[in-house]
């Protein structure tokens, strides 16, 4: 154990966990990384490419090395950063990317083959032979890709989403963020304070500095207590604001129960969409390391992280407490690590600093030189120190590396703002053109002392609130350290061996040099050639060092070399939480008709039609194939009477003194002349002259119409009509509202439909004379229920559609079925509906596919010449008028053969080429009425080719059927049944 005393963990609250199957004990307040370190575990994983042993590098979300797989079974989660994983009782973690035990990874052989895996390896190696790509290379690369492995089972956890709004969003709960939230909170603004950590304080918790002569954690506690008591402030720990989007919208993930030992049934994570009027970005800074030969051994970590583990988590970075620690720093901040470790009783062998003017800040040896080599297979045991040209090996159990700090500018550049180089700070700071309303504060804007961060947070809040017209007062800031840190532009230690720049992707200084040599010099090319800055950490600890190395090679300055514009997400976000928790049948809403439960109870098989579920057919006992059910339903309608739930058809109420004129302009055919109490078939064209929807229009009163649309286009037609009403013809007095859901509508079709309806209507004359074909009326049924009746037919039979308020739809269906038993009444679904409309030659979605015209549908004369309407003029353009394809029917010459919809039509004896293509089959079905397969389709001059035999070719399946061109009306071509 290397557990120290003190820290912010609860030593009296032990937490049991396991790593690679071995039990360990940590403390409440630990992360998995701090608990492992406190147990003397330095080796936590293997590197991606070379399978090098790796240990914890950082103490935050920037971690490139300590990626582990948490949990078991379906909850297995790979690539989780141990440095931000809150420890809890029963946590199960495993290392990843090794074959065999972690300390003896068979794949470590890759390290010996390193010369073959240089930058651009994939691009150079997998180019040839070309034939190998799909069968060999791609599977190999896919197998090798990634670190951890998914469970490949559905995610069993629950996820949630939500929406928050505030005046001020403060991103980051460190010194600057806390002050910003406090200033805004006291001013009464609506404030959200979010931090990815589970403890508030940010970097304050990792340092030994005092605020107002007391440990910083005390001040943090007081601030949080005050903020918690303010009703206008919402504090959100464990919440990562991962992206800044347009209009002040931010994406954030709250880890709701990831830290709880028994979270069964709880939401795991919540995706928040936060809309903020102003944002203070106080995301702190990330320390960078200094590449030198073999700088990737376990035990070599960022010096600031070492301090954090010692001060906050009471964990020494070594395998044994007696092992000395060395520090390699190019700045004063690294020396603080030596001081803090010494204060914690950890022996410090030396601080190695290349600066000749560096000063010793405490009781430790200061060596002016560099570290340029290390030893230790599974953890560092010695470092090679070179001073004035001579080298010696210095034993140590851990090495802290301090290369300076990079402000966390990420969110500030999510709108493409380029960070700018600060030559004093030797880092990029937020540039101009930040996301609207965003102000950056604290270390994120280069204010690197605690005092400056506090002041910066306050100023940012005051500025932000002033912009909102909210008066805020400055607050008394605690006294805090304000020592300026000096550092040098020392970016890496030159040498022959491999010096890692990007630990996660195994990118070395040599790789960057090779990229330079191969002219992959722009940063975007560098990234892709070497894979630098990719994967889960997105190069948080490596990007700037890599740029510096490239700058050195090109002889340019660092800002001339380039920088990275960051994109969301700041850290990895699971797809599950992005999905927001809606899975399975709840993935999208489903619409049900009022008679759904009746249909379900009566053997319906349902089919999705847009968001609706519609009864496709009703299976009766003894029916083992859908065709049996459908054929029975069709014959029942043609012979007796059938009922079909047609509620899903769009219904639009059109009222106003100009309603008739409006409909004249919307439909291509004349609608204004429709008499009250009558219905007319209507066709709508797009602006380009093609047909896009059809339906009926019923005139209930002089200024009152009801328009029906196809199910699929209900919303589109309504939207287009609203556009026409509001934008095209605002001068017309027309009022539209959808009534699709308000009315349940049932088609009653078949020769006995009148008889059946007569049994439910209240004193209403259904005779052909009183209520002829295409009549409509408002009436009552079933003892006083208001209803609408339309005598229209899709099946070609004597038929009606009856509408009642939706709540009575189910009961009406039941009643009609009860009252029609002796008439042989049969419920039918969309499949039988489709068969019958094909038999009748009625167009539907397959014929109105957006490429067809009224003329092609043999409805050309419907496009009225007496008035203008949407698409009418364009429908007469030459390109459309000359189209000779016409809707006709098809029967197979051999009745046993089946016509496949989608087949293309060719004259007998012609080649099956695009040039000789004469049309296509749009719809086909088995017709129990005809006794064979039948089809509808568009054929060149089809209307004058009746009786000709053509070929319906289905090259996809290698089938061809000889079909006879016939009238599209297979049933009652003269329409006598409709009008009977």
């Amino acid at each position, binding site marked *: 154990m290397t557990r120290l005393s003190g820290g912010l963990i609860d030593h009296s609250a032990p937490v049991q966990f396991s790593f690679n199957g071995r039990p360990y004990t940590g403390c409440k307040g630990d992360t998995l990384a701090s608990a492992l370190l406190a147990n003397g575990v330095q080796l936590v994983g293997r590197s991606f490419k070379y399978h090098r042993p790796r240990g914890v590098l950082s103490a935050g979300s920037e971690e490139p090395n300590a990626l582990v797989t948490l949990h078991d079974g379906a909850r297995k989660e790979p690539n989780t950063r141990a440095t931000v994983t809150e420890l809890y009782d029963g946590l199960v973690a495993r290392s990843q990317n090794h074959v065999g035990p972690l300390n003896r990874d068979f794949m470590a052989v890759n390290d010996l083959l390193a010369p073959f895996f240089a930058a651009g390896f994939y691009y150079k190696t997998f180019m040839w032979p070309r034939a190998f790509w799909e069968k060999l290379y791609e599977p190999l690369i896919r197998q090798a890709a990634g670190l951890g492995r998914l469970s490949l089972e559905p995610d069993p956890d*629950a996820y949630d989403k939500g929406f*928050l709004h505030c005046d001020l969003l403060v991103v980051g709960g460190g010194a600057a963020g806390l002050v910003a939230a406090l200033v805004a909170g006291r001013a009464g603004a609506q404030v959200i304070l979010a931090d990815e950590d589970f403890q508030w304080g940010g970097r304050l918790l990792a340092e030994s500095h005092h605020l107002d002569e007391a440990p910083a954690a005390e001040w943090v506690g007081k601030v949080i207590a005050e903020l918690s008591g303010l009703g206008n402030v919402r504090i959100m720990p464990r919440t990562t604001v991962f992206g800044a989007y347009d209009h002040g919208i931010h994406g954030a993930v709250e880890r709701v129960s990831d830290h709880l030992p028994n979270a069964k049934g709880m939401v795991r994570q919540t995706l928040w969409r936060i809309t903020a009027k102003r944002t203070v970005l106080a995301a702190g800074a990330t320390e960078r390391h200094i590449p030198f030969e073999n700088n990737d051994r376990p035990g070599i970590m960022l010096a600031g992280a070492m301090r954090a583990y010692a001060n906050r988590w009471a964990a020494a970075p070594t395998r044994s407490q007696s092992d000395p620690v060395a520090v390699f720093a190019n700045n004063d901040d690294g020396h603080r690590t030596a001081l803090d470790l010494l204060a914690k009783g950890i022996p410090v062998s030396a601080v190695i600093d290349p600066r000749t003017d560096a000063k010793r800040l405490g009781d430790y040896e200061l060596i002016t030189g560099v570290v340029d080599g290390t030893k230790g297979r599974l953890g560092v045991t010695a470092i090679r120190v070179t001073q004035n040209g001579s080298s010696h090996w210095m034993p140590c159990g851990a090495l802290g590396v301090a290369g300076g700090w990079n402000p966390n500018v990420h969110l500030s550049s999510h709108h493409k703002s380029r960070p700018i180089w600060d030559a004093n700070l030797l880092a990029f700071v937020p540039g101009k053109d930040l996301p609207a309303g965003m102000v950056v504060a604290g270390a994120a804007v280069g204010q690197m002392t605690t005092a400056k961060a506090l002041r910066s947070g306050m100023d940012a809040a005051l500025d932000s609130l002033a912009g909102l017209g909210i008066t805020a007062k400055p607050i008394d800031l605690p006294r805090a350290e304000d020592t300026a840190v000096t550092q040098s532009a020392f970016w890496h230690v030159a040498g022959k061996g491999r010096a890692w720049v990007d630990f996660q992707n195994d990118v070395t200084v040599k790789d960057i040099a090779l990229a330079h040599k191969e002219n992959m010099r722009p940063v975007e090319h560098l990234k892709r050639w070497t894979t630098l800055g990719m994967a889960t950490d997105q190069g948080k600890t490596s990007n700037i060092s890599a740029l510096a190395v490239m700058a050195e090679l090109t002889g340019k300055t660092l800002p001339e070399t380039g920088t990275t514009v960051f994109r969301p997400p700041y850290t990895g976000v699971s797809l599950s939480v992005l999905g927001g928790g809606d899975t399975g049948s709840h993935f999208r809403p*489903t619409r*049900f008709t009022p008679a759904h439960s009746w249909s379900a109870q009566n053997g319906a098989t349902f089919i999705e039609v847009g968001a609706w579920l519609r009864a496709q057919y009703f299976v009766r006992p003894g029916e083992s194939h859908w065709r049996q059910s459908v054929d029975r339903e069709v014959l029942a309608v043609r012979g007796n009477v059938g009922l079909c739930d047609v509620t899903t058809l769009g219904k639009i109420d059109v009222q106003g003194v100009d309603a008739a004129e409006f409909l004249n302009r919307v439909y291509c055919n004349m609608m204004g002349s429709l008499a009250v109490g009558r219905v007319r078939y209507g066709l709508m064209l797009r602006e380009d002259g093609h047909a896009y929807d059809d339906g009926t229009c019923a005139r209930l009163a002089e200024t009152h119409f009801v328009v029906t649309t196809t199910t699929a286009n209900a919303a589109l037609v309504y939207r287009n009509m609203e556009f026409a009403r509001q934008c095209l013809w605002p001068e017309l007095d027309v*009022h539209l509202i959808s009534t699709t*859901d*308000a009315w349940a509508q049932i088609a009653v079709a078949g020769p006995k439909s009148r008889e059946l309806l007569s049994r439910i209507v209240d004193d209403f004359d259904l005779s052909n004379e009183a209520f002829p074909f295409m009549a409509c009326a408002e009436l009552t049924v079933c003892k*006083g229920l208001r209803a609408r009746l339309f005598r229209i037919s899709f099946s070609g039979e004597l038929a009606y559609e009856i509408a009642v308020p939706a*709540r009575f739809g189910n009961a009406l269906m039941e009643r009609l079925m009860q009252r029609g038993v002796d008439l042989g009444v049969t419920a039918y679904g969309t499949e039988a509906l489709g068969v019958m409309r094909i038999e009748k030659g009625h167009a539907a979605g397959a014929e109105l596919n957006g490429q067809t015209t009224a003329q092609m549908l043999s409805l050309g004369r419907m496009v009225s010449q007496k008035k203008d309407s949407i698409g009418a003029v364009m429908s007469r353009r030459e390109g459309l008028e000359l189209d000779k394809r016409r809707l006709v029917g098809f029967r197979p010459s051999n009745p046993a053969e089946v016509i496949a919809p989608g087949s293309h039509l060719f004259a007998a004896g012609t080649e099956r080429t695009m040039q000789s293509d004469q049309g296509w089959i749009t719809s086909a079905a088995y017709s129990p009425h005809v006794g064979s397969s039948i089809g509808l389709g568009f054929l060149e001059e089809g209307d004058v080719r009746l009786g000709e035999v053509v070929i319906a070719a289905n090259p996809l399946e290698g089938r061809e059927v000889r079909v006879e061109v016939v009238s599209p009306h297979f049933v009652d071509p003269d329409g006598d049944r409709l009008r009977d």
Partner: protein
Amino acid sequence: MTDLAAITALGESAPFRAEIGALTLIENSNLALASLSVPRGQNVPMIFEMTLPEVGQWQAGADISAFWTAPNQWIIEGHNRANEDFAELVKRAAPDCCVTEQTDGWVAFDIFSNDGSKPIADLLEKLVNIDVNALKTGTAVRTGLHHMSVYLIRRRDEQITIVGMRSLAGALCHALETAAMRLR
């Protein structure tokens, strides 16, 4: 009175009701609705002695209330009148206006809190991208909820009504119930 039995939007004989923590969710199947549009050039009428509300507002009357839905368009609510021909009643009250029956076009869920307004705010922030602080009593807005279009009517601090499409009642109910359960 018809001898047909009505069912609720959820396909049941009785309205949905659930008590979840501080919240009670009740399907209000007795709420009658009718849209009212004022013809061009006419003044906005008083309806049942009630002034129709301004943009984004809801106006309470005795057993009648109304909320704004579009320029010159409102939905008139008849409380406990779903079994009447409410549209006809509204038409008689405003004979020059265009009135359309909407009662069964929608499903209404009344949500009550027994612990002040916070549980309602907590629920809404899980469901709709609306600033709950701005959703004061008397506000009515249309917004998206789980890919569905809904109206939110803030009747009191402790009560909100969510009106959604009837055919989507099941999905809406599931979303509300799940969100409420997760608040516990």
